């Protein structure tokens, strides 16, 4: 479930005017920006951008980029974009940067629906004049490349039909690889990157029924190399996105120096989807609310913005 709260009636024109006022003159009224944008869904944000462009002949996003700073600016920038555009930008940053950012690409490839992934790839073409596949492929090598490119290229069947005996045989293939009995990465890549999510979850269930431990548990522990790590992340993303994101947040918050990029990414991309479930999982796991943890670990307008997206009313 989503966490953001949206008022019953909104006027894009009014919002655009108020945002303009917040940006005019000396300094910026960040509270206004948070209180408006933090309570608008994707469709409304798009309408506001259009209204702003029509009235002031200026791109609202560019205006905000110049008025705001730091983590707050990054968060607002990502929030105000169209989801597909946002995914394209996140993927681009990740594809160009250090290895550790590959999880973003795996998240987008595995957690988005087939249509959302497609929309992200189209937005990527438009923005960067390249395909996401070619950028990911040219910066990676070996089995890691094969896995990543395959995950990004796939257009999974999105139906619920499941072939039970296939789930059994493919669970076996996965098991053999995990137990180190086989080094055939091709089959694992094939299964993970082409089967539908319903089929994969049936396979993971069979795995658990047959071997006692869930596949994610069997894979955890120190991954030997970037391929194994990517495999682990992909499976977690497909099996339970919410649990995966809870873990990302937990690690980002506990980390010395806090990983704001990760926190922003999770909160901004899930606030309209399943952040509530992620919050609940976090609470159960850590005996403290996510809001509380974010409050302690972040500050200023950035903190207020995150808390707003988390659904906090009293700030």
């Amino acid at each position, binding site marked *: 479930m989503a966490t953001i709260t949206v008022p019953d009636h909104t006027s894009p024109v009014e919002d655009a005017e108020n945002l303009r006022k917040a940006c005019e003159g000396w300094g910026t009224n960040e509270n206004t920006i948070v209180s408006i944008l933090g309570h608008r869904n994707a469709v409304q944000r798009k309408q506001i951008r259009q209204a702003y462009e029509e009235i002031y002949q200026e791109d609202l996003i560019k205006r905000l980029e110049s008025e705001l700073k730091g983590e707050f600016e990054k968060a607002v920038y990502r929030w105000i974009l169209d989801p597909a555009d946002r995914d394209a930008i996140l993927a681009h940053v990740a594809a160009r940067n250090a290895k550790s950012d590959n999880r973003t690409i795996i998240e987008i490839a595995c957690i988005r629906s087939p249509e959302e992934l497609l929309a992200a790839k189209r937005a990527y073409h438009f923005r960067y004049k390249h395909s996401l596949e*070619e950028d990911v492929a040219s910066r990676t090598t070996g089995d890691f490349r094969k896995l990543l490119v395959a995950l990004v290229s796939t257009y999974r069947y999105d139906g619920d039909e499941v072939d039970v005996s296939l789930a059994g045989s493919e669970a076996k293939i996965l098991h053999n690889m995990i137990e180190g009995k086989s080094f055939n990465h091709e089959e694992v890549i094939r299964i993970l990157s082409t089967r539908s999510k319903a089929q994969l979850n049936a396979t993971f269930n069979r795995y658990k029924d047959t071997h006692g431990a869930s596949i994610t548990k069997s894979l955890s522990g120190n991954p030997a190399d970037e391929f194994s790590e990517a495999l682990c992340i992909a499976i977690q993303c497909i099996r339970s996105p919410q649990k995966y994101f809870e873990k990302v947040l937990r690690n980002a918050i506990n980390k010395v120096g806090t990983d704001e990029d990760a926190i922003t990414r999770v909160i901004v991309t899930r606030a309209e989807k399943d952040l509530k479930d992620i919050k609940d999982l976090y609470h159960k796991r850590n005996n403290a609310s996510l809001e509380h943890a974010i409050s302690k670990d972040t500050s200023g307008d950035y903190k207020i913005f995150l808390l707003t997206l988390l659904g906090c009313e009293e700030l």
Partner: protein
Amino acid sequence: MALPGDLDALTKAFSGFGVDENSIISILGKWHPEQRKSFRKGFPQFFREDKRLFERWDERHIAFLEHEFLRFKNAMVLWTLHPWERDARLAKEALAKGDYDILVEIACTRSSEELLGARRAYHSLFDHSIEEDVAYSVNDSNRNLLVALVSSYRYEGARVNEEIAETEAKTLSEAIKNAEKRPIENEEVVRIITTRSKLHLKAVFNYYKEISGTTTEEILASALKGSADEKNKQALTRVIVTQADSYMKEISEEYHKQHGVSLSQKIEETTNGNYKDFLLTLVARGD
């Protein structure tokens, strides 16, 4: 007795590449029992003298005729199907028969959105994604290339990085010269061919002119040779039907340039009946 011209016409009608329905109607349709009997006796390639004293039609030839009668119907259906459904069905059949070159053809000649459409139709028709079926069915070294090709969603814009194109041309050249490994087993070759945009690949190929894959024109030429096998004959239908709306004009011109005779003329000489007329109509649309 039958006129020699009639016999020639009927022989052609019965042997061909499509069936000459009009000859069959005008000649065979008029014959009395005696004439039909002497036709049967006069053509041992179609009819054999059975030990119980009748001219028996060769089973394989009946099956052959059935197939040739269907050629027009198949062309017509292929033409009328939504291109997405058409390509999805072609892909499914190609996969079942192991005709990987048809998969390559579809993956490479369709635009990104057309290929995507075919993948959507495939979901609807077969409850699977095309990539999962290709990955599951292909168990040899062709797998990686084929899966990547059918999954491609290439950038279709004009921007090309010439430096990268040149570097990648060198990579391809080295991979092809390497006698120890087939080029398609080289992961760099697969990466370049399956992820780069078509314009970028054109630039790469220009930098490396020696690369020649099977061009569409060559498929047509093989199909129109006298000794064409069934696969090549089906290719003729497939290429003309699927390209009639897009590159037919270019293909005809290229065919003429390479073979000195127009595509239409060659089709006229080699094929029969409604099937022939249908193909000629499609080809003429390019004019």
